[in-house]
């Protein structure tokens, strides 16, 4: 069984016992908790779509490693075509869920670790890559969902890992044993953490020799002893408990269900250790992961934007404003902003290249430009959507009042738009737009895959200003200074 259905994915989660807390309570069953069900539904779409014939071309691939058809989310990119198809796949799924479907982080993690373990082995004569290939085979055979756990809490950001007052601000090795290592620390903002089968933990920053204990990469099942998940709050999360329509996107929720994931003296067997002290490769891993993940955002966020633009268009129609020239202009602007992001992701994929391991990665400069544009364009798209929606976005009565036998008639009377569109339709569109543009949903576009400054650092590093200066010198007839 190399590909699971959404149902099989849910059933597989029932067999796990991860330790999860939310609002002071321990969650006993992850698949039954209203705060987490939408995120599981969203991830389940990545399984069901792989089995749908219309998405097969994007969602599946034949694995040379296990000789079977697999879900693309467990695949190591072998060509430019793979990179492009990843982006297209993300857009297609985003259109279906209107929310984060979480699985890309682990996918980017396995691709980055695959290539970096090859490079480590080549230089250090270790055997991480061989181990990692066996791990990938296991992931592919079982169609597992892996979280990509990179971001450490970081404590005092001005200090390196080994200089922190509290060593646990970065995940680190606390003991090395004959059969494995013991790690402590935490990873923050981990997407899909509580509904994944396991975590692929990677270092979060470049390291120096004194940080060797922090240069650690490993896989660990989600319910291993010592792992504690603290599920994050989201805008309007209590609506998940007392209503459906007012959630906006009740089936798939908003964002990726992020959690603070604590590692309290967790034992990792050697077969799952893929970096153990090779500090000089930490930056390489971070850069490759960041590139792969930033490549995504002109795929998934454009899929979400497609749904958002549709919502805004339908709402304008419901409110009788669709024919106004400025509304049509704003809707067109939303499309232009969104497709610009898609162009970026497709471009960085086409300009990608092969790594020594034989796998492919996107062009780092263009991938970082993609994500930096996402931190701007998605906000502008949301601003235009809110502009078109009107103030009702922030003031609409609740679904309970609309359903109330006494006052519901007033809601019906005064929330009415054009004749042929029901109040329920209008309210549903308003709530969906609210879920997609207010609060937590937008922050994901700003800080997911790294904050804007992280992209600027990478862009600056690869800008090649000297080349641009040479071009200027040539045009201005300035002779080169002897070097």
């Amino acid at each position: 069984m190399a590909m699971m259905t959404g149902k099989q994915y849910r059933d597989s989660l029932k067999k796990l016992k991860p330790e999860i807390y939310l609002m002071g309570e321990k969650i006993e069953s992850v698949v039954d908790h209203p705060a987490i069900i939408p995120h599981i539904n969203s991830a389940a779409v990545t399984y069901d779509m792989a089995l749908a014939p219309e998405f097969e071309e994007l969602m599946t691939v034949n694995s040379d490693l296990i000789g079977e058809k697999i879900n693309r989310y467990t695949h190591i990119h072998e060509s430019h075509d793979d990179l492009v198809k990843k982006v297209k796949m993300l857009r297609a799924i985003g259109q279906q869920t209107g929310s984060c479907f979480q699985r890309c982080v682990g996918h980017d993690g396995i691709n980055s670790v695959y290539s970096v373990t090859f490079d480590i082995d080549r230089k250090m004569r270790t055997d991480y890559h061989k181990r990692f290939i066996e791990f990938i085979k296991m992931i592919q055979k079982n169609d597992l969902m892996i979280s990509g756990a990179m971001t450490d809490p970081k404590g005092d950001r001005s200090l390196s890992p080994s200089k922190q007052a509290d060593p646990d601000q970065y995940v680190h090795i606390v003991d090395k044993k004959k059969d494995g290592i013991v790690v402590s620390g935490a990873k923050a903002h981990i997407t899909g953490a509580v509904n994944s089968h396991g975590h692929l933990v990677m270092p979060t920053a470049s390291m120096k020799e004194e940080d060797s204990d922090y240069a650690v990469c490993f896989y660990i099942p989600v319910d291993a002893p010592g792992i504690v998940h603290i599920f994050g709050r989201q805008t309007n999360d209590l609506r998940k408990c007392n209503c459906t329509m007012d959630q906006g996107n009740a089936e798939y929720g908003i964002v990726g269900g992020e959690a603070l994931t604590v590692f309290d003296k967790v034992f990792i067997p050697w077969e799952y250790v893929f970096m153990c002290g090779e500090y000089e490769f930490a930056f390489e891993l971070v850069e490759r992961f960041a590139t792969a993940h930033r490549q995504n955002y002109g795929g998934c966020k454009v899929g979400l934007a497609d749904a958002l633009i549709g919502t805004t268009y339908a709402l304008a129609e419901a409110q009788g404003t669709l024919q106004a020239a400025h509304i049509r202009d704003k809707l067109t602007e939303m499309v232009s902003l969104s497709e610009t992001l898609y162009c970026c992701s497709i471009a960085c994929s086409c300009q990608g290249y092969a790594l020594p391991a034989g796998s492919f990665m996107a062009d780092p400069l263009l991938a970082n430009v993609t994500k930096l544009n996402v931190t701007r364009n998605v906000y502008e798209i949301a601003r235009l959507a809110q502009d078109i929606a009107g103030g009702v976005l922030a003031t609409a009565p609740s679904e309970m009042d609309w359903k109330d036998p006494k006052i519901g008639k007033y809601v019906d009377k005064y929330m009415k738009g054009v004749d042929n569109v029901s109040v329920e339709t209008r309210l549903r569109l308003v709530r969906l737009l609210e879920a997609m543009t207010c609060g937590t949903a937008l922050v994901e576009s700003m800080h997911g895959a790294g904050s804007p400054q992280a992209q600027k650092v990478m862009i600056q590093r690869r800008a090649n200003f000297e080349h641009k200066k040479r071009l200027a010198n040539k045009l201005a007839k300035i002779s080169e200074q002897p070097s």
Partner: protein
Amino acid sequence: MVRQNPKYKIALKYCGTCNPYIDVTRIARHLFNVIKEKDELKLVPISEKDISIIVILCGCFRACGNKEDVRNKSDKYLLIAGESLMGEYIAEKSLPSSLDERLIEILEELRSNRTP
């Protein structure tokens, strides 16, 4: 009369250099000088037959010049793609000397394979 061995043909293939990360013209100039200095090498266009070595010179890691039909034109090829030589990272300033080293290795191999 001493019979001279025929020269090894060497050709250069550029990627197109749309937005090069490295100064490819500087590396090409260096290569031309090396060829001039080595009697056994002869620079030919890539359309020539029986090429011994092809140097594929690409401005970035994308390596647009690295195509199968280009590589198949000779038994040996060297690929520079951005700051890399044959897939290994090499800083731009060290690329010419690294290219020289690999060229010498290939020439030695070709010499040893040449029938007396």
